[in-house]
């Protein structure tokens, strides 16, 4: 019986009902947009923070001390220990492989460029790694450091003679994109023959290379020459070896749990730590994958990022709450406006003998149905709006956030009910005769 009344009531005065639904939809859509944006903005900020560069570094565990300034290693190419290049693929097989944004290996070879002593930095510029049959991962220096500027173009990894020259060195040598430079490698540092029991062959190689572009970073790389990794390995006689790897990973800010001493954790807690993308747990997993390496977060970067993300997260949350509150208020006021018109109807019900409870139930149910429909429509509209906004600003679409759906529905329901309940309460108190007379 109730259902029949409800359905008939809903079917009547359709225009008024549609207006109510529209009002709820708009309000909830705005709230949903803000909610989805604030869920995603934390992720967006995290990605933008990664444009800084690496936050985890991999070095050989048994390495001798690096003679390095600003990350560039000035040791003779052969000294110290190395990491095998083919182990790097394992980085995309760890538990948190999807959090690895980019990584790049480095090999340093001291050499002379047009007579000037400098260090050749062998690296990947833009490499496509075949992780398995279906998945390819694009990585390299360009992806790791999107803020670095190249005047000219990035060299091709397969082109052995294309190089990048750092801005300061290029100014000193007076070369630019398109010039040719000669790189000569000293006997002691490259062209070594590694044979026990024999004196190393004294060989000095001089080769001509093409400058494809001039690199500007503001750091130590401005004084170096960047060559494809294979070229550096060939010059130094260190095929398949790299000295250092820089990794950029999306991490969760480290909290007290993340800093706990691993040896004191229970198996469950260790599992939980392992499954949280702290910088230290990702470094731990990389260490497990490449045992001969020493993997550490770059603390300054990881800590700073953590602080920024924490603060921004709270701010976004507050803003989202404020927006939701105002949306709730808007919808409530609209329900208030439309509910006032129902006073005559309420009077009629009561004069026909319906109890207060019955009337209240009917009207609140009606409001509830309207709220749910409006909430669903609002969620869909809000998702589309958020998607379009994100695409316009970032060029990257936002994912679907199903968690917003129950929140939107709950909010719509709460607000429509509240908006209807108030005038309903007042109307029920007035006697039907007065209402019908008006």
């Amino acid at each position, binding site marked *: 019986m109730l259902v029949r009344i409800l359905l008939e009531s809903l079917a009547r005065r359709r225009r008024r009902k549609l207006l109510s639904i529209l*009002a709820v939809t708009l309000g909830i859509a705005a709230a949903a947009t803000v909610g989805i944006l604030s869920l995603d*903005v934390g992720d*967006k900020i995290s990605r933008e923070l990664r444009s800084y560069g690496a936050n985890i570094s991999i070095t050989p565990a*048994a390495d001798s001390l690096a003679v390095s300034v600003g990350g560039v290693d000035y040791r003779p190419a052969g000294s110290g220990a190395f990491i095998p290049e083919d182990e790097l693929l394992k980085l995309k097989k760890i538990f948190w492989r999807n959090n690895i944004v980019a990584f790049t290996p480095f090999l340093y070879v001291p050499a*002379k460029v047009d007579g000037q002593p400098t260090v050749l930095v062998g690296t990947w510029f833009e490499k496509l790694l075949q992780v398995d049959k279906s998945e390819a991962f694009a990585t390299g220096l360009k992806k790791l450091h999107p803020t670095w500027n190249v005047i000219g173009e990035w060299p091709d990894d397969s082109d052995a003679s294309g190089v990048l020259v750092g801005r300061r060195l290029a100014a*000193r040598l007076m070369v630019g994109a398109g010039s040719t430079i000669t790189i000569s490698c000293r006997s002691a540092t490259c062209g070594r023959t590694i044979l026990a029991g024999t004196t190393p062959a004294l060989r000095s190689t001089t080769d001509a290379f093409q400058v494809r572009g001039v690199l500007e970073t503001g750091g130590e790389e401005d004084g170096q020459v960047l060559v494809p990794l294979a070229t550096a390995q060939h010059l130094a006689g260190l095929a398949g070896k790299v000295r250092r790897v820089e990794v950029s990973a999306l991490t969760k800010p480290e909290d007290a749990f993340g800093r706990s001493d691993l040896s004191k954790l229970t198996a469950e807690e260790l599992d939980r730590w392992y499954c949280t993308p702290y910088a230290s747990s990702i470094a731990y997993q990389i260490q497990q994958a490449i045992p001969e390496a020493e993997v550490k977060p770059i603390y300054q970067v990881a*800590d700073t990022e953590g602080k920024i993300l924490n603060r921004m997260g709270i701010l976004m949350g507050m803003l989202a709450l404020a927006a939701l509150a105002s949306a709730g208020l808007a919808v409530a006021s*609209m329900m*208030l406006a439309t509910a006032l018109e129902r006073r005559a109807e309420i009077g009629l019900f009561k004069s026909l003998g319906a109890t207060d409870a019955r009337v209240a139930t009917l009207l609140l149910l009606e409001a509830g149905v309207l709220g749910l429909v409006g909430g669903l429509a609002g969620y869909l509209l809000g998702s589309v709006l958020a998607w379009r906004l994100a695409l316009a*600003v970032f060029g990257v679409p936002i994912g679907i956030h199903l968690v917003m759906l129950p929140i939107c529905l709950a909010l719509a329901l709460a607000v429509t009910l509240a908006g209807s309940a108030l005038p309903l309460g007042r109307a029920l108190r007035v006697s039907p005769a007065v209402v019908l007379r008006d």
Partner: protein
Amino acid sequence: MNQLADPNRRWFFFRLWWGAVSVKRAQAGLALLSLMLGAAVMSMLLNLYGGARRKMTQEFRAYGANAVLAPGPTASFTPTPASVSSPTGRMKTADKPCHPERSEGSPQFSGAVGAGSNNCGDSSPANSDGLRMTSSTSLDSPTGEGNQGWGPAEGTVASSTMDQAIMSVVYEFARKRRGMTVLPMLYGVVRLQPIPPKPRLPDFVNVVAVGTDLAAISRMNPGWRESQAMDYSGPLSLPLCAVGAHIASRLHVASGDTIHFQPLTSSAGARAAAGAECRLASVITTGASEDDQMFLPLEELQSAMGMAGKISLVQLRLDGETGEIERSIHELSKALPGVDVRPIRQIVYSEGRVLGVIRWFLLSVTSLVLVIILICLTATMTAMALERRKDVGVMKALGGSELQVMRLFLAEGAALGLVGGCVGFFVGSFWAFGLARHLFGVTLNVIWWALPLVCALASLMALGAAMFLVRLVRAIQPAVVLKGE
């Protein structure tokens, strides 16, 4: 007859209106509340944006220096003569028996043995005990051939230098432009030995030495983990220095130990490349290059290397946003021809990108909230007007023109807007202050110019909502309404 000019009639209409308003207080209150909320959110966002921006730029300072002043391309480039740094005979390594098992690098690694960390006197593969060695790695080869391997490396690390006299210009610039930290540095390669020498351990290591103000570099890099924060001031017999974590573990030294350093890069006639001693103040762990470096006061390194009055570069930390930093750098490079001042792109530009995201988010939320409030207002004011149909009918019947009625509506809207805007502004600012102090730990300045802006915006919104009522008001026919239909 000019009805508008009749003061009695106007006063009468106003009283009629005021009666209607005071009866329907709930609705007016709701409209006021929504206006207040809108104004509060807007002013909170405006205030917080300033605070968030400032806090963000502050947080980014934790990355350390964000600009570098280095010798320009035309600066004198002095390749270090490699022969000077040959420590022949000094290390007495030829006298020491060779202990391969003490060399660096466990035997299972195929890499070459680390430079200088074994005390085998010669580089012949015979004493390698199965480990491969190269001549490039042994520095103490009496033939000096090993040095040729070091020549390019050493030369590059301490290659081009600048005159310390430029610092006066830089300090003057920093004084005028507030929020700028300046740190001159000198790089060199030194050989470190613990004093007294520890048996069964590597005798010495060659590392990059960074000559700078220890306390200042510590302040500039709050992200560095230091083992022991020691007070750097106070007279001590030996100068203080710091080493990176790798060096400390290699040499098994800790805070309070004494180490001896001897430059491998030095001009001829140095303070007898005998080096000097210093006391270890702290051990620095960063996860980056600094773990392999040694830090000591600038003057100490300069005198040890015989490079008095020379610096390799100056690290700068500039406060502010990307645009301000770029401008300051441009001005500084104009003031100092012959040197090269550049931003460290990965810090400066990633900050810009993050701030861009935050700005975009705040703007989106603000506009969405404003849209919501506008909807809310329209609905509420429509409801109010509908309620007052009879009153409008009465006014029209008494001869009031549509314009007069509309003016009353608009006046009401404007008044609501003003009051709601002002109150909302104060509520929102108060809210923002609390948030900023709690979240960011910054005290905000009240953005007074936001007050008229918020009030004006609130009034505009109320007026806009009132505009929707024009059609409604026009449609009200006194006869119909008063009859009760």
